[in-house]
């Protein structure tokens, strides 16, 4: 599903070039639950951005579902993000003026899904994350855990192949953090592919499959083919 070959990413900040990724090879199969760990500045966010098609590698190939993203233009990348990838962020990144329902609806709007089908999908997914009674609430009327559930619902609503989560429990108390982690595990067990950056040690309770990245290189891969 995800195949990365010799990925290098160089950021040019004027005079200095920063090499964030120094030749990363990574294979992730459908149905995997992979956690990415590593100190800050190690390149994990860059890896996630490339994996999420928000950014392109400087060199190397990233093949997502058989498509080399090198050959895609901005519109095609946008479509790919919309259909193939669901993002979950550490600070939720919900639109503050929109209700839970409207936040979840947004990817479907971008995808051009029709009104009736949209309503069904949004309601079903909010129901699934346990927020069917909070649909009309704005983010500021929701707890941290509930916000992250909305964000997860938004990531799932377009039936993506991969869910990319960047420290999804980082801003949550331990109770909500555990609930969110359990939600991810449930999703995984239902067959979703999940890649998660996390420092949360609880992740290890659920998966041994982790990538340790330091200094732009993968130090240790366990159970990664």
């Amino acid at each position, binding site marked *: 599903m995800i195949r990365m070959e010799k990925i290098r990413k160089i950021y040019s900040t004027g005079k200095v070039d920063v090499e964030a990724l120094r030749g990363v090879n990574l294979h992730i199969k459908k149905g995997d639950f992979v956690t990415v760990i590593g100190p800050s500045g190690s390149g994990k966010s860059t890896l996630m*951005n490339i994996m*999420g098609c*928000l*950014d392109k590698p400087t060199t190397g190939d990233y093949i997502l579902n058989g498509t080399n993203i090198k050959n895609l233009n*901005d*519109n095609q990348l*946008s*479509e790919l*993000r*919309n*259909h193939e990838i669901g*993002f979950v*962020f550490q600070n939720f*990144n919900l*639109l503050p*003026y*929109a209700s839970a329902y*409207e936040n979840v609806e*947004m*990817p479907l*709007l*971008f*995808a*051009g899904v029709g*009104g009736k089908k949209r309503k069904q999908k949004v309601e079903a997914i909010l129901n699934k994350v346990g927020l069917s009674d909070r649909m009309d609430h704005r983010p500021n009327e929701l707890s941290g855990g509930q916000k992250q559930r909305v964000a997860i619902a*938004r*990531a799932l609503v*377009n039936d993506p192949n991969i869910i990319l989560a960047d420290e999804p429990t980082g801003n949550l108390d331990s109770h909500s953090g555990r609930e969110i982690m359990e939600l991810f595990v449930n999703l995984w067990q239902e067959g979703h592919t999940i890649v998660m950056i996390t420092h949360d040690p609880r992740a290890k309770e659920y998966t041994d499959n982790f990538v340790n990245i330091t200094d732009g290189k993968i130090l240790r891969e366990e159970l990664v083919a």
Partner: protein
Amino acid sequence: MIIKNIIQILRELSKQKMRTMLTLFGIFWGTTSVILLLSFGIATKSSVSKTMHGMGEQICIIWAGKTSISYGGFPKGRQLSWYNDDAHYLKDNVPLIDDISPQYDRWLPVNVGAKKQNFSVNAVWPDFKEMRNMIPRQGSRFISSLDQEKRRRVVFIGNEVEKTMFGEGVDAVGRLMYIDGIPFTVVGVIIEKEQDGSYNGRDKDAIFMPTSTYLAIYGDRYVNNMVARAKDITKTEQMKKAIIAAMAKKYRFSPEDEQALPIWDTTEMDQFLGTFFNGFTIFLGIVGVMTLIVGGIGIANIMYVIVEERTSEIGVKRAIGAKKRLILFQYIVETFVIASIGTTSGFLFALLMIFAINKAPLDDFVGTLELNPFIAVTSIFIISMITFIAGWGPAKRASELDPVVAING
């Protein structure tokens, strides 16, 4: 999909009430200012030119003067006078003349019943009507050529004369009026008109009769003045020269002698006013456009701030699949919504102001404001263009944001 997006945009705008209100007010005020400024300009122009034309349009008033150059054996300082025949003479000898009329003027006692008062009584030809805007009130008429031919004792009177002599609200047409003890029938009353320029009193205070009737009674040798108009108003200057030349030949004064035949050419004033008011309107227009540009800069500024403060939101939208053109579209629609609400309300407010100003007793100062549709459409077009240009930059910038950078704010 697009409708849903627009609804979404409207919702986002309504969430940012203060900011949206301020921007709206800027455009609203710009629109109101431009439309009011231009309406004032046009109203002043038409008010002045209307009162100027109260006396007549593009006419020349001809007097007899004193020679200032000795000529043909005559010393300078000779007083000249024009005869009744001279109007015929000029009409026959100067082909550039379209209409001409002599004008006699006497200050005479007038009475209707017991009411007695002195008025300026004029004798003119029927041609006088068109030249001097002697517009009869409905159901009445000016002196006709038949009156002239038959020396009828008929008068055309000013509306103030009617009011003074016959009383408020009384229709004088068909009634008798004694001038210097002689009965005349009123055949017409002038409509109420605004008149700034005059050379022997306002028309509303004057009485007009046929020259034939007048001459039969008083037998004046000389006319007070003549009034002439050119066939082609652009040839007024040539007509004046031709009149002077013809009269100089007949009365033996120098054709160069301007004081022998003083002419008041109202077209000169028209030209001056025309130029002046065109300049004035252009000036007001520029002031208006400047105001709008300031408004436009305000819009651009605010749109940039919007993009700035919602950078991470744009990043999130891009991350979940919004294409560049959708982001661009969103910000353009936002600008468009603000611009159209702003211009529409500004336009309606300007209309309200125009209505209110017209209701207020300010007519004499500013005249009647009216909204010229061309100006309305043009201003709204310019405002929309400025707004659009002001919104385009920030919108483009928003759509070009790197999603990775944008998400992190």
